[in-house]
């Protein structure tokens, strides 16, 4: 698994055995990139499991780009900010007053507050900048898949600069537009977290130009799920036994952090791909983070009967209704054939077929884990490695199993229970 190299630190590489994916064609390239204005953006509560929000704005309030919309109730230092300036148009609440989403309608907005970036920012400065700019919410912890505490330190940080999901934009092309931002972001992460920052790249992809020696490139070869941070974390910083913590952050969020440190404002746009069988001409779109799906696909020819999904065909979210925004870690919109993802009430038994083992995340015994999730046995799920996983890691199993269960949702219940009971 680890091979020696000419540098001081050995080059790291991980080989992943890919799983079969739906044939959806090639992902659109940079030549199709176009900028799109978003008239509405939103923040989705479901993107931050375990977080309770304090809404610090009211409907109708004006908000500047980067203005604070929400704070973590238990850790008010953690701010969720607006990607565009405008007016708070809706605060949608769900069961037990949980926040479903908050939306901003873009219009003439007050100017953004400048964030003061010191000449040579130290760990505390970067942490403060990330918390104030909202970039802190781009980090996700393993285990549990929560937001990290404002004063927490991980054992390692993982940045996936590859994307093996069908039709996803190629991170290498996105980074190539502003390689300096990405390198500066990686350096900043290493300084802030004071640990190794693993930058996972595809074979043949240039290593990031980061200067900090704690930034280490990892070549991850093979098909999907090679891009899932859980795979790299399993090999380089296993967290399933308890005691260790890894953080993961997407490469576009790292670029945003790099720009924040270089220019004083984060990059509030994201490059997302629009593709799938229902799209006439798949393309890349540069659009505000959290943009409404209707805005992203405006002006494109899309089969009206198609099922629009944010995220990949392998693990997406139905994009319907006023709460259809791009999620925190979603860089694509997929138009699937009509009826895809339709709910089926019939629950069939779990047949432990042999493909479950092939689709299982590394190191996880599929059938015992799925049974533990189905019966709600948190202790057993934890022993079998539930702490190594988040929802996306079980998507392939949910798609293949005959039991008709959403194992990601069941895993979330288990993780929340394990966390409540003190891990």
């Amino acid at each position: 698994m680890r091979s020696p190299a000419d540098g001081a630190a050995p080059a790291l590489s991980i080989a992943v055995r890919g799983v079969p994916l739906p044939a959806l064609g090639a992902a659109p390239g940079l030549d199709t990139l176009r900028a799109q204005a978003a008239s509405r953006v939103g923040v989705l509560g479901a993107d931050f499991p375990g977080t309770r929000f304090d809404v610090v704005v009211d409907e109708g309030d004006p908000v500047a780009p980067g203005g604070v919309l929400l704070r973590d109730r238990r850790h008010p230092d953690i701010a969720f900010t607006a990607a565009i300036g405008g007016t708070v148009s809706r605060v949608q609440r769900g069961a037990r007053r949980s926040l479903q989403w908050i939306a901003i309608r873009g219009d003439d907005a007050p100017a953004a507050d400048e964030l003061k970036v010191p000449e040579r920012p130290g760990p505390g400065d970067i942490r403060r900048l990330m918390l104030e700019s909202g970039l802190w919410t781009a980090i996700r912890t393993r285990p549990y898949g929560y937001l990290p505490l404002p004063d927490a330190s991980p054992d390692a940080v993982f940045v996936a600069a590859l994307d093996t999901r069908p039709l996803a934009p190629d991170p290498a092309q996105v980074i190539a537009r502003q390689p300096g931002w990405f390198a500066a972001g990686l350096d900043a992460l290493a300084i802030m977290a004071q640990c190794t920052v693993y930058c996972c790249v595809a074979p043949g992809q240039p290593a990031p130009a980061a200067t900090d020696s704690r930034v280490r490139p990892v070549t991850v070869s093979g098909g999907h799920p090679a891009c899932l941070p859980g795979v790299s974390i399993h090999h380089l910083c296993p967290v399933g036994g308890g005691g260790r913590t890894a953080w993961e952050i997407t490469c576009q969020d790292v670029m945003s952090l790099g720009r924040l440190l270089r220019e004083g404002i984060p990059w509030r746009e994201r490059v997302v791909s629009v593709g799938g069988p229902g799209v006439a001409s798949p393309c890349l779109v540069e659009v505000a983070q959290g943009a409404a799906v209707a805005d992203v696909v405006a002006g494109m020819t899309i089969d009206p009967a198609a099922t629009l999904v944010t995220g990949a065909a392998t693990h997406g979210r139905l994009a319907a209704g006023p709460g259809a925004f791009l999620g925190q870690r979603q860089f694509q919109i997929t138009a699937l054939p009509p009826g895809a993802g339709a709910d089926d009430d019939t629950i069939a038994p779990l047949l432990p077929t042999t493909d479950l083992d092939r689709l299982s995340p590394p190191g996880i015994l599929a059938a015992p884990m799925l049974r533990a999730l189905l019966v709600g046995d948190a202790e057993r799920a934890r022993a079998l490695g539930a702490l190594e996983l988040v929802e996306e890691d079980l998507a392939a199993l949910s798609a293949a199993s005959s039991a008709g269960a959403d194992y990601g949702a069941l895993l979330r219940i288990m993780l929340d229970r394990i966390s409540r009971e003190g891990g």
Partner: protein
Amino acid sequence: MARAVTGIAPTPAGRYRRLARLSLLALLPVLAWSVISTGRRYLDAAALHGGGADGWRDHAIVALGVDTARSSAVDVLVVGLVHLLPVLVLTIIAGGVWERVFAVARGRPFDPAYLVYAVLFTLLCHPAVPLGQALFGLSFGLVFAYAVFGGAGRTFLNPALVGVVAMQVSFPGALTDHPLWTGLAGHGGTTLLDAYHREGMAAFAWSGIDWGGAILGRAQGLMGETALPAILVGGAILVAARLASIRIIAGAVIGIVLGSLVANAVGNGMADGGLATLPWHWHLVLGGAAFGVVFLATDPSASTTTNAGRWIQGILTGLLVVLLRVATPAHADAVYPAILMVSMLAPLIDHGVVAHNIRRRHTGHAH
């Protein structure tokens, strides 16, 4: 929260129905070949015997105009169907009645997945099985090893196998007695294993059976266990559908080969080695070894669910088949009790594999 969308895959119920259809499809080649091989074996025996026996099947065969002295291809089909069809129809109808009873009692939909076990049970019957015995065995298996646990996918032993074992326990001759074949030269009992135990290789020569003939289903046996090519086709379907684990099948072959090599090493030195001297390539093609390993040991609900466990289960099954055959040569083929025993051990095997996985996780190693 919105349910995660997982692409273009069929719905869960659709996946389940597809798996049930594929496991039934995998049995069709064996069903077809068992008609032919049963017909041929009956006519071969009748030619030796100078005519059929005195059961209702024999009367039906005569009434349908089959001349046992000069048999044609059509005669082979007719004779095969006379043996297979009544049992098959009986098990499908009786199984359907039990499935309907439990579906109504439990308030769940009628699930045709029981058909797989009805067909498996039929193939595990002797061609001349008394219909009353078949009805009893099938009902026992489907009720106590299937329906009471909630039906397909929730069982822990193969219901067809349980039914056959119950039938054999209640009617000791159920798997071996045939009015026509029992007592024929070379067909003592009905299994060549028994003949070999008593006479060695000479028994095969008397029976006119060589290794190739055994592969093609000329040897006496249960309806499903005599058609190796058809079994392999069905096995390929099951493995491609990911219903059967190639690890279990390969492990069982390894176990049988290893077991018979050890048995040969001991048995060849003895004056009367009996079945201990049977070479491994005969073990694989005689009796129910191939049918049992491919269709019964691999039942996903009744076997181990981890890859390491599958290897262990397969090898254990193979070893136990040889051990039981050598130790109890006078009984009916030991393949089925061997599979049933290892099937009962499957949760224990998985438990060991899971414990190992958990231990490694706690020592902090990635693998």
